[in-house]
């Protein structure tokens, strides 16, 4: 919509905002240091709304909680949008000057009345109305989100629905007003920025643009395919159809991180050639034909990563890697040499110079400046450019510099895995403070907060099912079954259950999840599976359970 894939605001902006919407994010646990900035904003007087099916520790800090049904985010956003329009609270001047597609949007959201919004989301109409008015009236407002928005079959629609709200109100492109997608991993932003996505070169430059492609072909001295590549889900599709037979995995553990784990295992095991380059011998590496031991990028090698606020920062070598492990860069150049291309032995700094040359976003970010200025935020095209804490300020120039931002019409689409009498409970997944994704890294330290995997249920459901804290139950979805102990969480509403995927070796949560993917982003719908819970024949309890 804006032509750039990055959060629009610096973290510090949330300290200076008037209204904070935390949407599908448990940042208190998953982005704790960002949450420090958020709390400063609260202390400075900002009002906070939290949109989350669960009453999480983040929600506990909100002034208002919108406990929506899993997967009803578009409906919620469209209802807010319709109410803002109906109440005459749009930023008309901004819409006229800086956006396109308003009329179509207005027509599309017309049916999302407060009443319908309440029906679809389970959030009371007066709460929806209050948030709509508060967001529209605020001088400055920020919407922050995480995987609660993006781990859905309609992930991109969810994001569009949120961006629409910012366009409606002009809450973007100004200090304190913006959109903050919080990235789940330390270099998700950087990976994409560097071109590790199917359709972009480094610096968000489109591979399907002939002029850009020509630049890269000149630089690389070779031809570049003129079509976009596959994203992760498409790769698995291709494996399914026998189109993809050789896979090179760098620093990922799809065997445990992908939805529908049974299918993933079958496809990976069926490959003709699987190469895994990782610092661990992961479950994926277990089935690989070749494993290339890598150095840990964040402490055993030099380079950069890019954070959620588009800040490029240096990582540095503090330790010598163990055994035969090598720096990723060295492995790749050695590989290139075996494949017949001698790239020499470039340093990370030399590779970065190529980035500076090819990416206008990064042109002004010399290593010297990154060192001296604690990192820089793109775009930073020239050496005398200070970097850009706030993105899209151009939308506030008159006339707008560059393309206008377009409204995108999106509609409510409920989770693919429907609830039925057979599978009456909604399972949503997420993360806890002390663990990270599949736990390969966090498993290395002993956390006093860690109590293993449990299926969390509401007190009402615990009573209905006749289960107690610590009782081991069978959890069944349309794709498989696992056993896990019960934890009772008063923060869950009846009908909602929760698990993480931090302990796949003990409890393989992704047996249960569905691989329904968003066609645009390739993300699977980890946030919404349909399950049932069965009591095991022989009562069995594990640990104390439920104390915390």
């Amino acid at each position, binding site marked *: 919509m804006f032509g750039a894939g990055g959060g629009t605001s610096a973290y510090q902006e949330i300290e200076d905002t008037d209204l904070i919407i935390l949407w599908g994010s448990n940042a*208190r646990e998953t982005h704790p240091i960002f949450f420090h900035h958020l709390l400063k904003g609260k202390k400075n007087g900002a009002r906070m709304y939290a949109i989350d099916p669960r009453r999480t*520790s*983040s929600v*506990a*800090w909100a002034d208002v909680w919108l406990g929506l049904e899993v997967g009803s985010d578009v409906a919620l956003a469209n209802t807010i949008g319709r109410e803002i329009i109906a109440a005459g609270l749009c930023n008309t001047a901004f819409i006229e000057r800086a956006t396109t597609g308003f009329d179509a949007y207005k027509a599309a959201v017309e049916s999302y009345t407060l009443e319908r919004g309440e029906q679809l989301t389970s959030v009371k109409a007066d709460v929806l109305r209050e948030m709509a008015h508060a967001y529209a009236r605020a001088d400055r407002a920020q919407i922050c989100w995480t995987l609660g928005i993006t781990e859905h079959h309609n992930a991109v629609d969810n994001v569009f629905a949120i961006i629409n709200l910012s366009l409606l109100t002009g809450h973007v492109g100004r200090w304190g007003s913006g959109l903050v997608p919080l990235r789940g991993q330390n270099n998700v932003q950087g990976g994409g920025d560097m071109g590790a996505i199917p359709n972009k070169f480094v610096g968000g430059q489109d591979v399907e643009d002939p002029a850009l492609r020509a630049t890269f072909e000149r630089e690389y001295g070779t031809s570049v395919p003129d079509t976009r590549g596959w994203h992760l889900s498409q790769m698995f599709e291709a494996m399914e159809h026998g189109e993809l037979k050789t896979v090179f995995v760098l620093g990922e553990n799809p065997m445990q991180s992908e939805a529908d784990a049974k299918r993933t295992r079958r496809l990976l095991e069926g490959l003709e050639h699987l190469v895994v380059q990782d610092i661990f011998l992961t479950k994926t590496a277990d089935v690989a034909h070749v494993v290339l031991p890598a150095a840990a990028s964040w402490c055993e090698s030099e380079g950069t990563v890019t954070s959620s606020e588009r800040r490029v920062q240096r990582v540095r070598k503090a330790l010598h890697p163990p055994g035969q492990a090598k720096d990723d860069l060295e492995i790749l150049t050695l590989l290139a040499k075996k494949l017949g291309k001698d790239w020499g032995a470039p340093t990370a700094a030399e590779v970065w110079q190529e980035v500076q040359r090819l990416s206008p976003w990064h042109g002004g970010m010399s290593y010297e400046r990154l060192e001296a200025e604690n990192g820089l935020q793109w775009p930073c095209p020239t050496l005398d450019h200070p970097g850009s804490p706030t993105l899209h300020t151009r939308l506030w120039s008159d006339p707008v510099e560059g393309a206008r931002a377009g409204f995108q019409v999106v509609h409510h689409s409920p989770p693919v895995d429907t609830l039925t009498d057979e599978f009456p409970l909604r399972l949503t997944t997420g993360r806890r403070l002390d663990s990270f994704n599949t736990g390969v890294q966090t498993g290395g330290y002993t956390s006093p907060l860690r109590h293993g995997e449990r299926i969390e249920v509401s007190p009402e459901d615990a009573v209905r099912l006749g289960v107690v804290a610590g009782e081991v139950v069978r959890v069944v979805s349309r794709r498989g079954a696992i056993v896990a102990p019960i934890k009772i969480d008063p923060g869950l509403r009846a009908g909602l259950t929760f698990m993480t995927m931090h302990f796949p070796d003990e409890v393989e949560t992704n047996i249960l999840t569905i691989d329904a993917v968003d066609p645009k982003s390739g993300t699977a719908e980890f946030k919404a599976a349909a399950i049932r819970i069965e009591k095991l024949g022989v009562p069995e309890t594990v640990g104390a359970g439920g*104390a*915390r």
Partner: protein
Amino acid sequence: MDLHLIPGATASAEERAAIDAAIAAVIGTGPGTRHMLLPALHAAQSCAGWISEGALNHICAQLSVPPAEAYGVATFYHLFSTECQAPRVVHVCDDIACRVKGAQGLCRSLEATFGPAGSGTEATWKRSPCLGYCEQAPAALVQHAGASPVEHTITHATLTVLETAVSTGEVPGPSGRAVPQAQGPRDPGLRLLRRVGVADPASLDDYRAHGGYQALRRALDIGPEAVLREIIDSKLLGRGGAAFPTGRKWEAVARSPVRPHYLVCNADESEPGTFKDRVLMEEDPFALIEAMTIAGLAIGAEQGFIYIRGEYPRATARLQYAIAKATRRGFLGDNIGGAGARFHLNLRRGAGAYICGEETSLFNSLEGFRGEPRNKPPFPVQSGLFHKPTVINNVETLVNVIDIVLEGGPAYAGIGTASSSGTKLFCLSGCVAKPGVYEVPFGMTLRGLLDLAGGVEGGRALQAILLGGAAGVFVTPDELDMPLTFEGTRAAAATLGSGVVMVFDDRVDLGDILIRIASFFRDESCGQCVPCRIGTIRQEEALHRLVAARTSGDRLTEQTLIADLGRVMRDASICGLGQTAASAVESALKKIPFDSRRSLTAGPEGN
């Protein structure tokens, strides 16, 4: 916030009910919920006799206060226990005035009968700092926790009475008279004490029959600006110890654009030897309420608080009753005197912490935080209670407002001396013939006051007088001609402080008194700043060594050390507590001839 409660601890139904009722009683009197913490902790304590984990959980859940913070607050106060203890506790004062009257012996006997302080499952006894009944020493406070908690003060305590109190909870009725000037031929010059012993403290009608609420009527007639002018013209100085011009405080708050404004009455009368405010609150509670109403109108405050020390059950009950009555009769509330004026008054109890008499500590305590002093500036008139402009005045100061409004500021300024206007209440205790509260115009000499109280008890020789309280100074028999004014005492390097005049005859073991003063400050230091937290304990240790004649090195080294400690406490402590913690000790060591401090040569008696 994401509260984490204590795993598995739940409050009893009784605790929950008591806590919920306490919260309901103060809801809406201040911003947010935190200010309800102290009342809630009181409810838990007086329900179960201690603050259980379950009760703390319930409080924290109700008020959104983290348990660690609530625990930090609970452990700040003497009268709260965070360990299970007997529901009946007899707090026996062993502070200086009671010590002179045999408190040490009583404590030793109780220990022999009932075991060490704090032991026992049904009932126990504990040593207490000054309970504010010095004129009727020795004193004790009986607290009986339960569904209907009971609290009583025992005065002129004997061993039999104390033993009965511990064993059965029974206590004799009130005894003793606190105001000698009101007995026999009544002193016609009484102003602040005018109604004491005359008007029924429980009767609003009787209060009015004795001139009550005429000042409020006049204040409503002349308006806030004129009231302010009268107070400024009266040259009234604060009676809490710091002697700051009251009119300047009021004016600063009245003119502040920041809203809301608050009025706080500092009734945390905890300076050892001080009991004048207690007498005013017990005997003439409506006068304080009327005075505060006038003050509230003058400074533009719609909410006032009285923060009363936790050891004053009778004054608390009488004020509570009087506030309720005044509210019912329209003397407090949203339409005072039918004139549309608005002023609400809320009574808050301290829980045993001398430091909370320091104004900024009092704010923190009232707000539900630990009673630690704040750094000044900013001063309360800029940032006081709830960090809003606040006038905080002592009880005695406020009661003066009534006469000032009635007779006018200039007339009031004509009483006393040019620099110390009005009358002053003095608290005479110790070895004096007729102990009690005395009201005299500023300017009387110390000798004159002593004579008024009948001189040294039994006609014995005077050894020394502690003037101004534990934070004051010792004066010697040759200083009796000192005029009792702010300027007169200052010239003599002394202080009026809170009006304490504690008399020690030649039999008193002054070394023991000095150690008790030092241990008082050690006990009462809040612990926040290094000079006071560690300085007070080092001072006490050094005094022990000095008094026991077991000095490290020579006496001079020890005295140098005490002087060094005194200097750092005075210079670098955050608040008045630390700054004056060495004052009495230093004055005694300096002024009183070495040999006359019997204990220093003879060793402490009964330690």
